[in-house]
């Protein structure tokens, strides 16, 4: 008993020591803030985007959406038990995929456009072939012991999932088996994003931490703290050198990967709603953050100022996405509609 307590105490001391070392190392390179550096950058001015399309079709709350790599098709998931694939240029629905479980929380489009994946409270990531005559279930990835919060395809043969069981996982779609399990979070994983070079990914979790992972080795390379509540959303800055997080603590943060720390925060005393989703414009200058206050607020990523708002939804904005060509932004809401803006 005493020996165990002694070992625990020693380990705790070692942890505290290492944490202090990390903080000291971060402090040592902290020679100035982003907002100070960005003082000389030209302001973007008021960003006023127009509502271009209001996509009606779902019959219940929309929980997730994802753009196809072609910047034209988009898939949305609703707890009405359906995935809808849209042609955003015309507003037409191309395909409806009925789900075995209506409690969907995540959806993803494969870069090829051939497959979509969804999952939720069923703990399963189901992959569908949408190029078949009618959508066909290709694989059911069943190993998580908690809800599926997010998924992203690397290709038609590999997908990464994030789960309420606190792990993320890389799956082989040919075999349907787990290739790598990423364990280190101590809270439900809520969101993930792939790095532009696809060698790593980031995850945000209910332990208020964001983690950077090496996809092939499975190791957690860096951990970012600062949020005081669940991180619900996470995205890469387009250069791949920084990440943006959105949290229930009503703020967003940008962490630079090479400086290994937060470089700017995005919060406003008038904003008392949790952040549900984040997406960046192609240059990285604008951050579109969906909030529980029914709006999507637009932030200047460099200056940390609010520069616009997308209003129109009648309920929480649950998902946001910018297509690869950066032409617009899509917001999805619990009000069952998706809106396209630019």
């Amino acid at each position: 008993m005493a020996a165990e307590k002694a070992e625990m105490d020693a380990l705790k001391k070692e942890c505290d020591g290492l944490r202090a070392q990390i903080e000291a190392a971060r402090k040592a390179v902290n020679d100035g803030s982003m907002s100070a550096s960005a003082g000389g950058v030209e302001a973007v001015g008021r960003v006023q985007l127009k509502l271009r399309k209001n996509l009606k079709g779902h019959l219940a709350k929309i929980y997730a959406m994802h753009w196809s790599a072609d910047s034209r098709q988009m898939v949305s998931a609703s707890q009405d038990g359906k995935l809808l694939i849209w042609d955003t240029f015309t507003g037409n629905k191309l395909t409806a995929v009925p789900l075995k479980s209506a409690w969907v929380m995540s959806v993803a489009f494969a870069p090829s456009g051939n497959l979509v994946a969804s999952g939720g409270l069923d703990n399963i990531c189901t992959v569908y072939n949408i190029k078949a005559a009618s959508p066909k279930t290709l694989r059911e990835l069943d190993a998580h012991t908690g809800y599926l919060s997010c998924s992203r395809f690397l290709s038609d043969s590999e997908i990464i999932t994030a789960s309420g069981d606190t792990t993320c996982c890389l799956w082989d779609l040919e075999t349907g088996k787990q290739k790598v399990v990423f364990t280190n979070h101590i809270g439900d994983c809520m969101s993930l994003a792939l790095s532009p070079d696809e060698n790593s990914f980031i995850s945000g979790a209910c332990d208020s931490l964001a983690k950077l992972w090496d996809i092939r080795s499975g190791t957690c390379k860096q951990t970012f703290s600062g949020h005081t509540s669940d991180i619900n959303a996470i995205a890469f800055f387009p250069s791949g050198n920084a990440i943006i997080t959105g949290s229930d603590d009503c703020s967003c943060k940008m962490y630079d990967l090479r400086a290994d720390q937060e470089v700017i925060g995005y919060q406003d005393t008038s904003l008392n709603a949790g952040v549900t989703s984040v997406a960046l414009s192609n240059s990285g200058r604008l951050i579109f953050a969906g909030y529980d206050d029914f709006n999507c607020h637009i932030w200047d990523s460099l200056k940390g100022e609010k520069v616009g708002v997308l209003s129109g939804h009648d309920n929480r904005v649950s998902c946001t996405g910018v297509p690869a060509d950066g032409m617009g932004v899509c917001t999805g809401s619990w009000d069952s509609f998706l809106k396209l803006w630019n």
Partner: protein
Amino acid sequence: MSNNMAKIADARKTVEQLKLEVNIERMMVSKAAADLMAYCETHAKDDPLVTPVPSSENPFREKKLFCEIL
């Protein structure tokens, strides 16, 4: 008893993870910030949400159909 063993195992894993994270090279924040700013500046003209494209090139605009009632 096994609960304590589990806690010790967790603590050991935490120490190992922290050891991995402590030894990375860190860039000065000012340089990192400058890089991010430079990226935004270089790509601003190619960002349709920062530098709007003409209406004719906007794939999401409502296409006006001209009808005449004869």
